[in-house]
């Protein structure tokens, strides 16, 4: 698969939130205003990109030679947890401004399904190192895109006369569903038309 195809696939066609439901918790939890949506999205994209590389390396050079492939889930989540902690420390030390913006979202990322999801998908799809990195970054961008769109919808929704029982989370889900319908326009056929 070419890199362009991977990017389009993970941003639009297989958008993590809207087609695979990964990272749905922050999608509903952090999308109340667009500022925090951007912060969360950036943090997730960053971690997904690095996590893809790290888990790929650990899988190829540690788990496979040692015949420990069955420990994949356990190892990946440990790598991700350590990575998130590490990234948090580095950002805190070197860039206080960035830490101010991303700080509160970083601990939440360990339990974001999208990060572990992309790590496992990279292995099952048989991507190489560069492809894994692209898939991770693209997945993060897709996540950010959906999160920002959602937060804008929800900001406007605040001002609309929504029926009482639908206020808040229910209407967010329904908007998400309609957004997923719109995203169905981006399918495999589009990919083939675009890239031949």
């Amino acid at each position, binding site marked *: 698969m070419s890199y362009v195809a991977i990017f389009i696939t993970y941003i639009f066609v297989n958008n993590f939130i809207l087609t*695979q*439901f990964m990272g749905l918790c922050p999608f509903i939890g952090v999308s109340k205003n667009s500022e925090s949506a951007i912060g969360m999205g950036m943090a997730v994209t960053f971690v997904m990109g690095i996590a893809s590389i790290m888990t790929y390396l650990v899988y190829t050079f540690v788990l496979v030679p040692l015949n420990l492939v069955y420990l994949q889930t356990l190892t990946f*989540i440990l790598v991700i947890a350590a990575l998130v902690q590490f990234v948090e420390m580095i950002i805190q030390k070197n860039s206080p401004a960035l830490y101010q913006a991303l700080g509160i979202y970083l601990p939440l990322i360990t339990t974001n*399904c999208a990060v572990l999801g992309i790590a496992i998908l990279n292995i099952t799809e048989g991507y190489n190192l560069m492809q894994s990195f692209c898939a991770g970054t693209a997945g993060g961008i897709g996540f950010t895109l959906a999160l920002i769109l959602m937060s804008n919808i929800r900001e406007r929704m605040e001002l609309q006369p929504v029926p009482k029982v639908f206020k808040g989370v229910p209407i967010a*889900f329904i908007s998400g569903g309609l957004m997923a319908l719109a995203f169905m326009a981006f399918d495999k056929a589009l990919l083939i038309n675009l890239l031949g």
Partner: protein
Amino acid sequence: MAQSKKEILTKGFFKENPVFIIMLGLCPALGVSTQVINGLGMGVGVIFVLVFSNIFISLLKNIIPPSVRIPAYIVIIAAFVTIVEMVMHAYAPAIYQALGIYLPLIVVNCIILGRAEAFANRNSVFDSFLDGIGMGVGFTLALTMIALIREVFGAGTITLISIGNFSGVIKIPLLYKYPVRIMTLAAGALLLMGYLKAFFGYLEKRKGVN
């Protein structure tokens, strides 16, 4: 402890249902709920992991230093998820295939870490065990309900375990011929979740008024 044993066990079924009320574990709840059997399989996996991780975290709550508790919990949870993965792969390969990536993702299912953090690390082993069962069953009920609605409308079938002559698939006459396809798609799952959430919010509000 202010709560009785019965309350600890049953609060997860409806009053504090993890999916509909506390909104935890949404990714697998929507991801695997295209067929009833997948919902049940996922539910069994989550109950197992939840019960055992609750027990172990409750046992170890005085040994694990607070500063590293989250990584420690995750390792315990991941160990049990690996067991579930291997057992399902060996004895229920069809469900293992259908659940796919959502099975390892039980590790990051917020219900399990959430219960570890909110309940198991400050309650007795037996209470944590009951809480694990209650929350797990509540999750399974919610998942089965979503899966039932999605499968009946989206495909016109109800897929259960095949036993003997019974193929495991119940067909619903009219809907089988003219299914509402959107329900099996991602968009349908999100829409349905929105309406169900509104419905449960309505029920809660009505109970509050009375």
